[in-house]
């Protein structure tokens, strides 16, 4: 056991830099054996296989039949409902729970990858104690729970100074317990989660009178003007808001979406109009819009007094002046004003990287004022049902100060990683080492630092003791959500290691200290049940036990969605002063400024040790494995930097080495970098790509003015060319469609005309007429499976890609192999930047996202070229792939016009524990064979199996492939094309439907694409 731990630490530095490729020699020998009699005889008698029965029967479990458990995702604080599929007691897949009003069945990439937190090979497997610190890192040795509890109890008894519980934004179940814990044991709780929109909550307090992040109803708006909030990526509730956004886009009159941000984010890429202001000058645009609204008489939502004050404020803010300050043309500014003024319901959002500045409140206040004056409060902005983040950068900074000055004796960390995600400039590491050091100058340590963590991370490395926690898929809990809903968490499988629930740890520590913090409950599961029943008391007529079981099955208590609650803004007079303050502040010009942003790949860094997330192509840059620095071509040219070069990004506080990503879709004045990469102690996958350091180390020791959060954006940086190549790996290197009409767009012309607009691309609509066929078409006796992809709803979030990997055992191959063009993903999100003509004859960027999977062509080019029938056409209209028949000529891949076939160049293996996630219904492919999207044929088989037992045919909705299931926006639809009433049949006949390349090649794909909808700017 000791060896294992030592190795864990050793791995940290000597992590496999080449990713995951491990080649199985054994396989090769087996194959070779088949060719020689002697080898065959030797290999034909392998080790006996055992078949192990259950000792005792498990209720509701039939071997070979999946059992689903409802739970709640705790990866971010959105609290999406999930359903976990288990087979023979192992969780194998996570899916969105359709009952949950938060995500309505969808789930993001990170949620899908929560399985890899459960099966992470770098999980802590038993309690650890730090024995010594070496230059390469601390050395931990296994210990027992009792020892750590004892030490903790001792420290608690002896503690004279502060006792601090430092946590992340905990799910309510833990938080309720933690609150009791802190109050009864004299602890103070400090919360740090860099993803929390504290500034938004603060600004809401100023304008609406309540502290808390409002809830938005994007689908109810006709026009959305967004200042940098990445609500399709990581912001607040990305799955729910993506769904709302897509519903709005698919409405009879699609919502119009204007995005204002210096960098083209994934959210911005989905906008009708993307404005690229100078960094920090967006506040001028907000001010300008307020002025315009006043001018155009759209101020019904505010009092005359407020209006007058605001009009004072906006005096002199003219389009020309704003154009000069922001770099955005005044025509476009006026256009945005016009959109807002003309819309019956609109929504102005601000957040994300745009409000992570040193002074975020002015912009947020102004956007809130805009919402207020436009009458959006109560329509699209819910200021009653709000989320109140507990995160406080000030408190963390204070804690650091206290620790440094020896005022903290006990520090317990749980669910947060400030050592990584709190700027190095504050000196967290230095401070933690001083916890409990007696101030008497002897240096004797009386205090204790205990990390509660399921996986080793930078913060846990600093602790004296580490107690391993359950991951969320092994644990109980509940998440109380704004609006009265409670989403339940329950273990989907038995714990794998000697771990405990955070709740149980708190209960035990408290019990050791003689406190009963769980009320009557002595265990966390009992606490959860009791609390849940207490919270939902009176909401059900069922008796407690029945209701509890029903809730577990359903996933929690979900009241019917009530819509947006009415609320009246109560504007704090301070906001005017604040706004005056900024109105004279010049917009920034000149220097290069840092622009860190959270990405769907890594969030704030929590997803960095999940191989699926690392291998996932960033939707905008298409880069995998590691970080990069985006810069404008002009900037790059000035600095003598080319795409992929190694660069050093330096601020006053630190420097990182990353590859350059040169793109015209960032503002000239910024260096945009995704946060979350550059870990040093977060497990093998995150560490393997850490070469350059973390973006957090660049940040200044500065807390944003007025808001309890950090100043992420806007530090001045210098960029210099580093040595050598930067190791930038992109899965898609060509950005333009070259006029090939692959991802098509229906443009809506005129102000708000109906969606029957002109089309982009002449081939549009050809999906409808039946071309003459040389051969008689295949008949499908029962079913003809098909899919429809609505590009208008696809945001490019890539959740489907991870879901596909999870369902179909797609290997993660590592950076080096991806660099060779050998990624294995069956489903890719193609991203195209094309320029289209605007109404006034100018050019406008059109970003297209296009999920591309096997098209299951009726006239498939891949099929007739296979010499061994490894791929052929089956009776259900599917392009079938028989792995074990494949000899690996790769002709099918050459001939596939969509390039969706993937070849196993090596024998890929799952490192220990990650192999547990393998779906037993899907064979793991061996080296030398071709694979591709199968429309999740195992799910079709399961549905047919069930239907046959019920004595009926498969009905619409019975089969849901993994990508379709997880899609947050329901852009994907699957079903039987033979059934004219199925949803997919109807979509295939939609006027926007077309089939990719079909009019050139007559491949007759089974996948119909519905063209994107865009307003012509």
């Amino acid at each position, binding site marked *: 056991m000791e060896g294992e731990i030592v190795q864990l630490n050793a791995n940290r530095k000597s992590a496999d830099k080449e990713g995951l490729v491990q080649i199985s020699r054994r396989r090769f020998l087996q194959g070779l054996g088949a060719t020689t009699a002697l080898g065959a005889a030797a290999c034909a008698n392998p080790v006996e296989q055992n078949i192990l029965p259950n000792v005792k029967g498990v209720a509701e479990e039939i071997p070979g039949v999946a059992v689903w458990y409802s739970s709640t995702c705790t990866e971010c604080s959105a609290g999406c409902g999930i359903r976990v599929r288990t087979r023979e007691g192992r969780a194998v897949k996570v899916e969105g729970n359709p009952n949950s009003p938060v995500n309505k069945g969808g789930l993001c990439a990170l949620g899908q990858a929560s399985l890899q937190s459960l099966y992470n090979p770098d999980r802590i497997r038993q309690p650890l104690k730090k024995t010594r610190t070496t230059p390469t890192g601390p050395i931990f040795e296994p210990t027992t729970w009792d020892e750590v509890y004892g030490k903790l109890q001792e420290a608690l008894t002896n503690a004279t100074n502060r006792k601090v519980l430092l946590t992340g934004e905990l799910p309510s179940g833990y938080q309720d317990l933690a609150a009791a814990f802190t109050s009864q044991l004299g602890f103070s709780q400090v919360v740090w989660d860099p993803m929390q929109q504290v500034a938004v909550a603060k600004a809401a307090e100023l304008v609406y009178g309540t502290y808390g992040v409002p809830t938005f109803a994007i689908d109810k708006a006709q026009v959305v003007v967004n200042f940098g909030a990445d609500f399709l990526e990581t912001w607040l509730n990305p799955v729910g808001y993506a769904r709302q956004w897509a519903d709005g886009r698919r409405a009879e009159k699609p919502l119009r979406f204007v995005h204002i941000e210096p960098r083209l984010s994934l959210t911005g890429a989905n906008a009708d109009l993307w404005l690229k202001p100078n960094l920090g000058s967006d506040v001028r645009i907000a001010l300008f819009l307020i002025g315009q609204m006043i001018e155009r008489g759209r101020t019904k939502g505010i009092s005359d007094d407020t209006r007058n004050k605001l009009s004072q404020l906006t005096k002199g803010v003219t389009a020309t002046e704003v154009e000069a300050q922001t770099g955005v043309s005044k025509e476009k500014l006026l256009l945005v004003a016009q959109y807002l003024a003309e819309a019956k319901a609109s929504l102005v959002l601000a957040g994300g990287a745009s409000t992570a500045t040193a002074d975020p409140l002015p912009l947020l206040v102004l956007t809130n004022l805009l919402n207020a004056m436009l009458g959006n409060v109560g329509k699209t902005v819910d200021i009653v049902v709000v989320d109140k983040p507990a995160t406080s950068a000030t408190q963390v900074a204070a804690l650091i100060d206290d620790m440094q000055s020896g005022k903290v004796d006990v520090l317990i960390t749980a669910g947060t990683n400030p050592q990584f995600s709190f700027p190095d400039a504050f000196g967290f590491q230095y401070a933690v080492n001083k916890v409990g050091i007696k101030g008497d100058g002897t240096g004797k340590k009386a205090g204790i630092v205990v990390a509660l963590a399921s996986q080793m991370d930078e913060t846990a490395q600093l602790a004296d003791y580490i107690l391993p926690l359950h991951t969320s898929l092994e644990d109980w809990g509940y998440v109380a959500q704004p609006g009265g809903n409670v989403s339940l968490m329950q273990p989907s499988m038995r714990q794998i290691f000697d771990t405990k629930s955070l709740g149980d740890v708190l209960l035990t520590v408290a019990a050791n200290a003689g406190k009963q913090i769980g009320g009557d409950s002595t265990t966390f599961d009992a606490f959860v049940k009791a609390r849940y029943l207490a919270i939902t008391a009176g909401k059900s007529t069922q008796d407690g036990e029945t209701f509890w079981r029903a809730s577990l099955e359903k996933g929690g208590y979900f009241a019917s969605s009530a819509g947006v609650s009415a609320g009246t803004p109560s504007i704090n007079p301070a906001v005017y002063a604040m706004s005056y303050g900024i109105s004279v502040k010049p917009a920034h010009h000149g220097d290069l400024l840092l622009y860190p942003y959270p990405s769907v790949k890594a969030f704030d860094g929590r997803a960095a040790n999940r191989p699926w997330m690392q291998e996932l192509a960033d939707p905008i840059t298409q880069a995998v494995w590691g970080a990069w620095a985006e810069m404008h071509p002009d900037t790059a040219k000035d600095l003598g930097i080319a795409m992929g070069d190694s660069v050093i990004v330096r601020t006053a506080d630190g420097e990182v080495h990353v590859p350059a990503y040169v793109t015209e879709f960032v503002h000239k004045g910024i260096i945009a970098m995704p946060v979350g990469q550059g870990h040093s102690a977060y497990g093998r996958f995150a560490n393997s790509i850490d070469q350059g350091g973390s973006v957090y180390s660049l940040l200044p020791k500065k807390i944003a003015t007025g808001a309890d959060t950090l100043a992420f954006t806007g530090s001045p940086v210098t960029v210099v060319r580093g040595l050598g190549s930067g190791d930038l790996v992109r899965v898609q290197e060509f950005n333009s469609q070259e006029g090939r009409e692959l991802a098509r767009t229906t443009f809506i012309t005129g102000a708000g005309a109906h969606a029957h607009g002109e089309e982009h691309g002449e081939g549009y609509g050809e999906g409808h007429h039946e071309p003459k066929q040389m051969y008689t078409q295949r008949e499908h006796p029962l079913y003809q499976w098909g899919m429809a992809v609505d590009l208008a709803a696809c945001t490019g979030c890539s959740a489907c890609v991870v879901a596909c990997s999870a369902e179909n055992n797609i290997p993660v191959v590592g950076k080096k192999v991806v660099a060779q063009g050998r990624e294995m993903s069956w489903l*890719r999100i193609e991203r195209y930047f094309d320029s289209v003509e605007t109404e006034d004859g100018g050019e406008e960027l059109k970003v297209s996202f296009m999920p591309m999977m096997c098209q299951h062509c009726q006239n498939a080019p891949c099929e007739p070229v296979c010499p061994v029938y490894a791929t052929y056409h089956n009776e259900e209209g599917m392009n079938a792939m028989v792995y074990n028949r494949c000899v690996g000529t790769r002709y099918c891949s050459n001939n596939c016009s969509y390039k969706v076939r993937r070849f196993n160049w090596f024998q890929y293996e799952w490192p220990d524990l990650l192999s547990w996630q393998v779906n037993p219904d899907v064979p793991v492919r061996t080296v030398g064979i071709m694979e591709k999207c199968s429309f999740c044929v195992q799910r079709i088989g399961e549905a047919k199996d069930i239907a046959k037992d019920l004595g009926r045919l498969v009905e619409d909705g019975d089969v849901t492939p993994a990508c379709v299931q997880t899609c947050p926006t329901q852009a994907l639809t699957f079903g039987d094309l033979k059934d004219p009433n199925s949803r997919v049949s109807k979509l295939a006949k939609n006027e926007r439907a077309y089939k990719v390349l079909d009019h050139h090649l007559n491949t007759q794909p089974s996948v119909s694409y519905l063209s994107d909808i865009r307003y012509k700017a």
Partner: protein
Amino acid sequence: MEHKHDAKKEAPVTYAEVNDTILKMLEPPGTGWYLLLFTCLFFLAIGASSWFYQMWSGFGESGKSHPIGWGTYITNFVFWVGIAHSGTLISAVLYLFRAAFRQPIYRLAEAMTVFAVMTAGLFPIIHLGRPWYALWLMPYPNQRALWPNFRSPLLWDVFAVSTYFTISATFFFVGLIPDIAAARDRATTKFRKILYGVTSLGWRNSHVQWKHYTAAYLIFAAFATPLVVSVHSVVSWDFAMSIVPGWHATIFPPYFVAGAIFSGVAMVITLIIPLRKAFDLQRLITPFHFDAMSKLILMTSGVVTYSYITEFYTAWFSNNVFERYQFWFRPFGEFWLPFWGMTFCNCIFPQLLWVKSLRTNIPFLFVLSIFINIGMWLERFNIIFQSLTREFIPAAWGGYNFSWIEVGITVGAFGWFGMWMTLFIKFFPSVAIVEIKEILPPPVRKETDHHHAAVGAGH
């Protein structure tokens, strides 16, 4: 013709001289031969170890990637099949046409055919992801009751290449039988006596044997002629039957057949020039033969050039966005070098052969033939690589990762081919004894109007 004047000064070649000159090649080898054989075996060892490493480690050791499923291995396959073609052309087609320059070079060309097909045949297996299942491409009865897909061009390849190998090897061996018998009759060592005794199958030169032999030989030639056309057509269909822009072209079969002959004749020249020098075959292989082969090269170069132009024209005229892009990309895109290298080697350089003196200039021909071989390799590489790297979907465009494994296997193929050639020239008559004798005037007491001889002594 000029050479006839020279020849007239010399004594006519006799039957005995033919035997003596050619069988002298079979005398115990010198150091040079051993060195050559060792070099070939060394290359072969490189190739074999590369291949085993590739199988052991995974197919990813080669340079293929996702858009580019085929690369150097298929290039080598087409290249070697192409090399093979001129052998059959010279031995069969020119036999039917009674071309006068055929006899002294055909045996070597035929040997080249057989060994080149043996080399070519390795590559489809090497390029398989699971080469140990190559058998599944054969329509053999099996317990799974599964058959291969007869609609696949790759299966046609199996049929065409296996037939080609069988027939050309048979043809080659049948042609060798009387010559081996001649070698047997002069063999001195026990090993050679047994070797030739067995391989000559007890051939006795009797009039009955000759009767059936010549009848059969003609039939073989008649079979081999359509075969040679079909095989490279089938190979070209590997490409033309797909939908890849740059592959999907009706001109491919004639284009490939012409290219094959072009490269094959060049390879014959490459091989025959050192051989002629080493074994003093100047009186059997004369400038007349080189002149004739040069003209063949000139003609096939013309056909190949025409085909290139046609490809471009078709792409332009089709107004197909994918085809047009592909044929813009080849000369002006990222990988312009192989294209222009090919154009120089195959289209421009051979034009020098319009100069008569260069057609019989042995050093020039040697250099030219090597250039043509490189050019033809590049041609196949262009077709395969350039087409695959820029297909329909820009998001899936990608590049190639050249690896030393591929280079090793390519080198190994030359070693393998060279090994067979080297062994062959020392163990079997690499110039046809009987056929050269056939075109000599037979020794007769009474002079009648006999056939004109094209070899050595002319009339």
